């Protein structure tokens, strides 16, 4: 079977090509096949990265291509890292990051724990819970702006119904103290199913025999939960936390669609701030340095993520 397919491939090779590759070593042929992918990777990933690092040391502005570009050393980096506005942006990102992760892990784990129990309609509920994750962030952002409408929004109506507050007296997107929570709620709604799926994988990987042994030793359900379930699901939870952490650090589309970074700059996350520096203020050199800082941070987090992933694989 294998021989025949090789023979077929050999027959299909045009004589000119066949003549050219004759005499090449296996290694050279392998390189020949891999070269286009490597070239594409270099052109699409590595070259822009190196170019961005180079630009981060200059005062280049992309809207003034003919202006003289001069080397400014570490000035862009120093300006960013001493700018209190950038610091505030980082704090807004931290608020978003911490609360989304806390809520997603708690709710996601609770849902996974429930779904892991066998009950009627289990599969249907899993599908319903997973639905938000499958939607586009642009769509989610758009319909949540309707839900958050003070006059007609369902969210405001529900809050008003439960607390007795007049729905039109507060605006989740327009009020400074509420806007950071508005984006946390939407991201939690959208990405909790993802954490739930990872936790569910962790829960289903625990052999039933461990629980049976614990039952024999008369361990209570509470003790089983803390000494068996939590330690064995922990690597999966860590994975979910790191994954969501990296994703939310780069969060852009959902927040732009929901609040556009406002009111003021209350919900202006780092990626939104970076986009404004690059494509509204046209400070390309400065924005490149900003991008390098974010890249190093995400790369560092990704390194820890890969390490955690390997630990899970070893289990």
């Amino acid at each position: 079977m294998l021989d025949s397919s090789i023979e077929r491939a050999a027959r299909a090779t045009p004589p000119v090509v066949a003549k050219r590759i004759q005499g090449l070593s296996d290694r050279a042929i392998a390189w020949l096949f891999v070269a286009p992918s490597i070239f594409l990777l270099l052109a699409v990933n590595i070259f822009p990265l190196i170019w961005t690092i180079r630009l981060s040391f200059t005062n280049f502005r992309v809207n003034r291509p003919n202006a003289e570009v001069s080397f400014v050393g570490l000035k862009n980096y120093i300006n960013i890292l001493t700018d209190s506005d950038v610091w505030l942006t980082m704090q807004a990102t931290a608020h978003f990051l911490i609360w989304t992760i806390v809520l997603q892990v708690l709710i996601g784990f609770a849902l996974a724990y429930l779904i892991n129990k066998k009950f009627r309609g289990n599969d249907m509920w899993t599908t319903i819970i997973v639905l938000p994750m499958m939607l586009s962030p642009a769509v989610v952002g758009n319909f949540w702006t309707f839900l958050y409408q003070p006059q007609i929004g369902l969210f405001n109506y529900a809050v008003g119904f439960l607390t007795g507050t007049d729905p039109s007296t507060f605006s989740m997107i327009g009020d400074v103290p509420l806007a950071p929570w508005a984006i946390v709620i939407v991201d939690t709604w959208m990405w909790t199913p993802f954490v739930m799926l990872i936790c569910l994988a962790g829960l289903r990987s625990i052999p039933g025999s461990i629980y049976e042994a614990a039952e024999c030793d008369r361990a209570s359900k509470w003790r089983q939960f803390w000494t068996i379930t939590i330690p064995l699901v922990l690597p999966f939870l860590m994975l979910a936390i790191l994954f969501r952490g990296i994703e939310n650090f780069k969060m852009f589309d959902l927040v732009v669609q929901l609040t556009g970074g406002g009111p003021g700059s209350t919900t202006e996350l780092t990626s939104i701030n970076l986009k404004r520096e690059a494509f509204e203020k046209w400070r390309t050199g400065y924005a490149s340095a900003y991008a390098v800082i974010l890249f190093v941070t995400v790369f560092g987090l990704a390194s820890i993520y890969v390490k955690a992933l390997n630990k899970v694989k070893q289990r």
Partner: protein
Amino acid sequence: MTEFIRGLRELRRGAWEMVASVLIALGVFMLMQPFMLSMFSYSFIVTLVGTVMFIIVSHFPE
């Protein structure tokens, strides 16, 4: 603890990766904390050192 220090002395991957991970986590914390601007200013260099260290030590023997 003794094993960890021995790992550092003998240039073992596990121990050094732990140091690099702590540096990265510390750098990210410094970047996002709301307490001191000076900590924010030094956050990038700490993260960079941690990340570069992680790349190097991941080639150390297990």
